[in-house]
């Protein structure tokens, strides 16, 4: 049988080679042992890899504060003396990361008027707390969104309507018969993706042109923006902000 022949040949060869053959065998055995050792070592490394999480226990949550009035106001976080001024030039804060389901407390103040803020944010939610004039007083509205449209190649544009004077709000692209958003109710928001082009928009309330057109400026792909429709003295006005997140 070929097996026996080969086996006998191997043994004969070893005997013929004598000590030299034994050295070959030793080297072979060492090679086998080293190989097995390396394999075991690799397995040991693999077995030793510490378990690590493949993500957070809960998604991130964010909150921002917006001045939807015609005058400057101050924002104060509960338990803090630090104040943030929100005015026509800077009507919004960035989105601050917060712990999901925890109480967010603070205060909007403007002259003698105050509006106490108390809200919570769900995991994965982006909440906007918008200060509004309520006669001579202040009030606020909280609107949250849970976006699933993240895309670095497109512009994400939201439309928030917090003007009770503007039912069925719409945004039309100036110079074109194209509606970016339509039939948005009061205290509601909607969002869509658009290409990074330079456009101006016109607000319509109940199909009536309202206020002046707004140039949205150079919108950058991958960035997120919001247009707010807020009550003005006798009408509704719009402005755009970047949905920047604190890093």
């Amino acid at each position, binding site marked *: 049988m070929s097996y026996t022949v080969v086996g006998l040949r191997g043994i004969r060869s070893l005997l013929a080679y004598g000590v030299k053959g034994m050295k070959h065998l030793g080297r072979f055995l060492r090679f086998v042992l080293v190989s097995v050792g390396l394999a075991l070592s690799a397995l040991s490394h*693999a077995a030793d890899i510490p378990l690590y999480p493949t993500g*957070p226990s809960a*998604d991130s949550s*964010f909150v921002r504060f917006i001045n939807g009035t015609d005058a400057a106001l101050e924002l104060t976080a509960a338990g803090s003396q630090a104040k943030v001024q929100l005015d026509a030039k800077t009507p919004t804060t960035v989105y601050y990361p917060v712990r999901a389901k925890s109480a967010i407390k603070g205060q909007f103040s403007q002259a003698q008027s105050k509006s106490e803020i108390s809200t919570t944010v769900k995991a994965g939610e982006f909440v906007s707390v918008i200060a509004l004039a309520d006669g001579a007083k202040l009030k606020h509205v909280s609107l949250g969104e849970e976006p699933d449209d993240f895309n670095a190649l497109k512009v994400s544009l939201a439309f928030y309507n917090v003007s009770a004077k503007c039912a069925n709000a719409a945004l039309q692209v100036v110079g074109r018969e194209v509606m970016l958003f339509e039939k948005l109710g009061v205290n509601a928001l909607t969002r869509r993706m658009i290409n990074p082009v330079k456009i101006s928009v016109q607000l319509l309330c109940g199909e009536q042109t309202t206020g002046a057109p707004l140039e949205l400026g150079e919108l950058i792909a991958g960035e997120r923006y919001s247009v707010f429709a807020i009550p003005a003295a006798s009408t509704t006005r719009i402005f755009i902000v970047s949905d920047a997140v604190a890093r």
Partner: protein
Amino acid sequence: MAAGTLAGIALLVLGESHLSLPGYLMNPLYEDLTTQGATVHAIGACGATASDWLKTVEVPCGADRFKGDTVFKGRAATTSPIKELIAKDKPSLVVIILGDTMASYDNESFPRAWAWQGVTGLTKEIAATQTPCVWVGPAWGTPGGKYFKNDKRVELMAGFLEKNVAPCVFIDSLKFSKPGQWATVDGQHFNLAGYQAWSANITKALAALPMVQGLKK
């Protein structure tokens, strides 16, 4: 000029556990890339997410291979801020190999906002240095195991990265094999044959990118 499809290109390669152990992706990938003429600095950090590469974060294990020297680290391993790494190495291309640490395989819901924040934070930091980059997404694993890797979520993770890593160019590792084709030791980490196949495919895909060919000196 060195021969090879990546001749003259200096690569800074960053990754998670796949790049952190000797029998994993680190050695085959380093060798495949250097064989193609690239100069490679490869750093792995077990469990590191995208945002962990914006700062120094301690990780349970890691590895660093540069100019032939390899250091496999245990508890002493950390990430390093990407800006510092780029300033020091001045790579012609950054290659990020990340996905499994951000897929939340054991969670019913995908942490989209968290992943978006981390991914865009890292890509913006790289873009600020004007260094081109490539992002290699996760490969299929085998369902189950201690990380609960599953086909549906890894597909979602790859799709999310594809939409969100620009200006980095995305390489989809899911196209390199069929689900379950590469055997794993724990559902997520491959055996050597799997890592060799992944490495060969990454190297080939990198070399085929017009942007990478434009970097050749």
